[in-house]
């Protein structure tokens, strides 16, 4: 096959993907940036306003809270998700019976619809008849209004976020652990290393590429938290204002209030944040991630 024909064939094979990505993602990306500099009416009529949307955002108390909350979910969520997942994956990787059973049990939240998780946890959190307050009462802890008290609503969301995310991340980390060759463990054992030394000196460094991957994935996921907040807390309550995130505010602005330009500006700010944080992570990884 000559070169020209091969090139033509190549273009034909990528044509469907290219067209789709070009229109729905590259063009859409540009359009969204463009919209963020505009006021967009309900019927799509636009007026160019320059940086006005961004200036408004900086003075918008709801946006500031959404930003703070998002940092709260990511800042606490990622370390919790990653460290708990590592511990669980390590436990699952021990040579014990029933591994498949435990793994299946832990994985169930990961295949459950967000709406079902929302319904379930609203019921668990119910202040009068919920299971959680009932169990806490048994150990002498006062009942709380988990999803309507502005002071604790973020924590309640965080708990469910960690619960649901760990479920997925454990599977990735367990696979990472199983790829570590037993040669390393054998050698360490011959040298008389104890469990703790093996975990910190061998398991963690060799698992670090997978840990890095899981960190990035959960970071991007938590920075975009929407489902759980939207599903667990009624939008017309005070608590909602204390739990909202960048994406719930984006949804509210762009599709609830039909402020498309303002919504686009919120999404652009989120994009910049995600880029910055991911960039920092990639810079930092050189210090702690070991590739063989």
């Amino acid at each position, binding site marked *: 096959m000559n070169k020209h024909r091969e090139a033509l064939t190549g*273009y034909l094979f990528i044509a469907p993907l290219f067209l789709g990505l070009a229109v729905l993602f590259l063009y859409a*990306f540009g359009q969204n940036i463009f*919209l963020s500099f505009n006021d967009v009416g309900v019927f799509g009529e636009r007026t160019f306003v320059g940086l006005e949307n961004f200036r408004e955002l900086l003075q918008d108390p709801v946006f500031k809270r959404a930003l703070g909350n998002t940092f709260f979910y990511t800042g606490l969520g990622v370390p919790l998700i990653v460290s708990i997942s590592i511990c669980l994956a390590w436990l699952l990787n021990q040579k014990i019976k*029933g591994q498949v059973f435990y793994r299946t049990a832990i994985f169930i939240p990961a295949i459950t619809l967000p*709406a079902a998780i929302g319904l379930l946890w609203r*019921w668990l959190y119910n202040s009068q008849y919920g299971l959680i307050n009932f169990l806490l009462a048994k150990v002498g802890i006062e009942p709380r209004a988990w999803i309507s008290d502005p002071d604790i609503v973020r924590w309640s969301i965080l708990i469910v976020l960690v619960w649901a995310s760990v479920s997925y991340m454990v599977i990735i980390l367990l696979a990472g652990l199983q790829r570590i060759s037993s040669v390393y463990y054998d050698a360490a054992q011959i040298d008389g290393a104890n469990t703790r030394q093996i975990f910190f000196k061998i398991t963690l460094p060799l698992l670090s590429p997978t840990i890095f991957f899981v960190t990035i994935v959960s970071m991007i996921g938590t920075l975009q938290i929407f489902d759980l907040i939207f599903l667990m807390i009624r939008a017309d309550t005070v608590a909602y204002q204390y739990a909202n995130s960048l994406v719930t505010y984006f949804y509210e602005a762009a599709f609830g209030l039909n402020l498309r330009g303002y919504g686009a500006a919120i999404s652009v700010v989120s994009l910049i944040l995600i880029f910055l944080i991911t960039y920092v992570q990639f810079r930092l990884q050189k210090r702690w991630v070991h590739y063989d």
Partner: protein
Amino acid sequence: MTKLKKYWIHVTLVLISIIFVGPFLWMFLTSLKTYEETIQVPMIWLPDEIQWVNYQIVNEKFPFLTLYFNTVVVVIATVFLQLLIASLAAFAFARLAFPGKNLLFLTFLGLLMVPGQIFLIPHFQIIGVQLNLIDTLTALVIPNIFSVFGVFLLRQFFAAIPQELEDAAKIDGCSSLRIYWQIMMPLVTPGLVALGILTMINSWKELLWPLIVNQSIEKMTLSAGLANLIGEHTTYHEQVMAGAVISVLPMVIIFAFFQRKFVESIAQTGIKG
């Protein structure tokens, strides 16, 4: 490992399993109670008499059959089209030479880093308004069939096939299309299965876009439809939990059958490519 150590590992894992599965058992138990039993103080664990009727009631109030039908249609169409489009491109990126290949691939990879909400307003304009697809199942499928991640994943599988196989086929006069479809596709089946399962899970759970583009309940998937249930009928805890069970059970059953495949697919995503 000593017996005592094993014992403690089991105890810990059982407790952890309870944290993950316990809520679902509570969901199921609540769905079998009467309303009075759900609000009884002090709380009771088991219903006096099992109330299967809750499932009948919630099924009459809420169009589960339609929602399930829509979900199945959307998931199957998304998976099928995404696999086709991604495998065509992955084949080209892995096995064909053409000018601009690396630049295109890098541009596509860049898209992976962009958060999804950036595209939602433009998607609503393009798919909803310009293509006039508001309140259709097609609108739910379109944005998800062009998967950069899918190309990225499948490309590794196509690249791993020995060159001799391709050469032999070329000598026999096979066209690129036949090499792709008849020779390589069967060999990359593990990759296709992995991508198919991941796409299925994502499409099944997707919430934000369906909420935006479809407003009538007849055109909703279970994910968005059930979110509406939260707004409307939340008074009767036992009925809401019965609805939740109906939405959870089928996927859990599918998972139980294909457990190993699910786990392998997710494991694929963590391999540094």
